[in-house]
């Protein structure tokens, strides 16, 4: 019962079939193509190369899905997640973490090293946006691709579960439509690049005077500025009252979308200890306070004629932008998936999640109910909670679960072997 792994031998090789290995190899070659272009710093034949990468990665995932899910009876598929190197913080897990983290560092601060990838997706950018590619377009393509492909995998993994299917279709379509196609088309139409599902304070820039001024020439932009504020002050409390914060976090949000699809294989890595919960509460509400102060300072600066506060508000904004906007939500938020689970940012940092959580905790019909005395304290629910909630602690006492952090993904209910948990929103 110590921390050592149970296994005397590593059972993982036995659990991976030949076809699965082939599938991983095919996807691996596709990913390797991208890595080579990244390393080479230039893309010689962007169209065939990007198509080849896309086809290979997709084919590998499709074969994996077939072998892992379609060829077997439908049900919970968590066999071996704590044995496999990638999903149990083994060598592959660390390596993946380092590569993703490195990509984000490059994306935010050293885009010159992404030249190859930017060239690679230039044809697609021309088609969609009518303009040259940049690092953010590369990011959008890879992000959306990950949500769609891993979303497809998730759809098959939970094909027996309508709640999971519908929810996953939702995050996939929101990502594809509102975070990729529509902003791209808006740019083609010479409109501001608007992401309709990101509002202040998650998109901290949206609430600033700079955003307001930036939209001044565009009626769509001005509409979106006030729409974002309305979603914060009215939409969030009302929708959260009826549905809990899941209406956003696990159905709409792009960060949540990536966590629920590409991040799903890592959900069990979140820390379930009481200590982690304490840290979480300090951190997430601190970020909320930080973003509110930052935004108020910026507006106060405008109100005072950009004089006395100019020297404070600007650095304050830049500090937030660097520490929270880039380092936390991007680099740590996704780069640490294979080490700390898929919701590090959502759990410890996201100010929007904090705001939603306050309403969920205090004024919402959403809760997870427990079914009488049927809990056997097995721990599958806690284990699969990406937000690190010790669900079992409530279930074994027969208590309803009302927690600010719960994003309503519903996996605890899905994996429960005794039918104990149900997400309820009347």
């Amino acid at each position, binding site marked *: *019962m110590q921390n050592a792994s149970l296994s005397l031998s590593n059972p993982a090789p036995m*659990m991976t079939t030949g076809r699965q290995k082939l599938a991983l190899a095919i996807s691996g070659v596709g990913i390797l193509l991208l890595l080579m272009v990244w390393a080479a710093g230039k893309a010689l034949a962007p169209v065939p190369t990007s198509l080849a990468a896309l086809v290979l990665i997709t084919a590998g995932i499709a074969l994996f899905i077939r072998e892992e899910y379609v060829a077997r009876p439908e049900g919970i598929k968590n*066999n071996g997640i*704590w044995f496999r190197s990638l999903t149990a913080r083994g060598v592959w897990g660390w390596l993946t973490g380092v590569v993703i983290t490195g990509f984000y560092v490059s994306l935010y601060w050293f885009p010159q090293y992404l030249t190859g990838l930017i060239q690679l997706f230039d044809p697609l950018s021309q088609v969609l946006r009518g303009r040259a590619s940049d690092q953010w377009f590369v990011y959008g393509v890879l992000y959306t691709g990950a949500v769609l492909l891993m979303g497809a995998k998730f759809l098959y993994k939970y094909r027996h*579960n309508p709640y999971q299917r519908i929810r996953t279709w939702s995050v996939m379509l929101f990502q594809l439509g509102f975070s990729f196609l529509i902003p791209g088309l808006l740019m083609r139409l010479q409109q501001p690049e608007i992401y309709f599902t990101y509002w202040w304070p998650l998109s901290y820039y949206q609430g600033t005077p700079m955003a307001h001024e930036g939209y001044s020439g565009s009626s769509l932009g001005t509409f979106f500025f006030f729409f974002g504020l309305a979603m914060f002050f009215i939409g969030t409390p009302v929708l959260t009252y009826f549905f809990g914060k899941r209406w956003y976090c696990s159905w709409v949000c792009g960060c949540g979308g990536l966590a629920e699809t590409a991040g799903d294989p890592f959900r069990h890595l979140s820390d379930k200890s009481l200590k982690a919960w304490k840290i979480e509460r300090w951190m997430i509400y601190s970020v909320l306070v930080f973003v509110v102060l930052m935004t108020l300072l910026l507006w106060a600066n405008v109100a005072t004629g950009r004089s006395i506060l100019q020297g404070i508000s600007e650095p304050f904004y830049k500090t937030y932008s660097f520490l929270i906007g880039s380092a936390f939500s991007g680099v740590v938020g996704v780069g640490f998936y294979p080490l700390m689970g898929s919701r590090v940012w959502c759990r410890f940092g996201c100010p929007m999640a904090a705001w939603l959580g306050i309403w969920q905790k205090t004024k919402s019909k959403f809760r997870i109910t427990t079914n009488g005395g*049927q809990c056997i*304290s097995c721990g599958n629910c806690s284990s699969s909670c990406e937000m690190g909630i010790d669900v079992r602690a409530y279930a074994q006492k027969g208590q309803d679960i009302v927690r600010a952090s719960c994003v309503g993904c519903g996996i605890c209910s899905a994996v429960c*072997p005794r*039918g104990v948990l149900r997400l309820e929103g009347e």
Partner: protein
Amino acid sequence: MARPNGCLSPFRRKHPYKRADAKQAHHLDIGYWTLDIGYFHRVFMHTVILGNGVSGITAARHIRKESDHQITVVSDESEYFFSRTALMYVYMGHMRAQDLKPYEDWFWEKNRINLVRARVQGIDFAAKTLHAEDGRAIPYDKLLLATGSVSNKFGWPGQDLAGVRGLYHWQDLEQMEKYSAGLQRAVIVGGGLIGIEMAEMFHSRHIPVSFLVREKSFWSSVIPPEESAMINRHIREHGIDLRLETELKEILPDEQGRCRAVVTSRGEEISCGFVGLTAGVRPNVDFLKNTGLDINRGILVNEYLETNIPDVYAAGDCAEMRQPRPGRKPIEAVWYTGRMMGEVIARNICGSPLAYDPGFWFNSAKFLDIEYQVYGDVPAKLPEHQATIYWEHSSGKKSIRLNYDRQTGAVTGFNLMGIRYRQEVCEKWLRDGTTIETVLQHLGLANFDPEFYPEHESELIDLYNRQTGKSLSLKQKRGLAGVLRFLVSE
């Protein structure tokens, strides 16, 4: 954790209006003050609990809630409490060993529950002392025996060979793991809950499994034939070699004394490197025999879970009720009864006696991918005085069964496969003796499946209408609001 009233001092000011609340036996009036004698019990009593399974630990937690007893929990099996029912998930790689612990390690010290790792080989009831194998003596004022079960062995030749194990203890899991390396085939003997778990475990690692079941159909002594047939199909769908009406005759050894094959009652020899013996469990009481403790199959206890020896109690798998409640078995080796007994024991040890009343029978399990729940009485063979209505989904993986009394129509049991029902709702219907037709029309209230799952209750009603010529319809769909209204209604 809340401290009990009166713990801070044995003296309490008399409350002029609430005399009835005070437990007279434990209070002594001294003028204006009441001396709470129970205080001394609560503070200076040393309760020792033998066994850190769910019964023992539930008792320990509740004794702590109700008293300031010194509490010592003794276990040979593991340092900390873990969920025995989840052992399979560690082998399958869904969880790590530490994830089975329902409480973090700091919990025990914080709640002043002293954990002792020792193997107790004998108990001197006269001297109120436990004797451990390593020579330690542990004195007690009150003793709870919660020693659990051991796997049944029925004298099969070769049953003690290396690579032959049941699945109950942590050590059993370690052995399974040890023999899994390079394993070509495992044979599981015994068609019950642990048997199918073990089959699923090996299957999860792509180790071929032959599953020997004595009965004509899986678990057919407990669940009705249709449900049993569903599980047969499902086991085979997974590619597990299910052999019905097949018993173990003997286990053959290789030169190293490890099992190499089994011989079945049909005379077949199946070569295998591991044999899982899962033909039920029996109380783990052998070391307590001939000590003056009344033991039949388990430790005999009355309805307060007291043994024949003063200050000694028993709970969980190892306890046998002298007079079980009507319709209940004297030994019920399931998680839920173990937990309920632990709560009752705490009350009895802390001096506010409570008889053990487990309420309506309920249980649940998961057979590979098919969940199972039962509320009330749904026997394998339908009794004369009962009628049943059984609906099965076209997929053959979901079913609903309602049993009811032929005379009164009162519903007597719910059996669910692949569908979740709400315990509180089913129990209210059982308690109220609600008739089958009322239950059917409101059956949506019981549905506990996740949102967007199809609701099949109206299909069950259609079936009932076809069978009886009635024309009932569903009046209540799934949903918490209706449930809450229903549960508070008369």
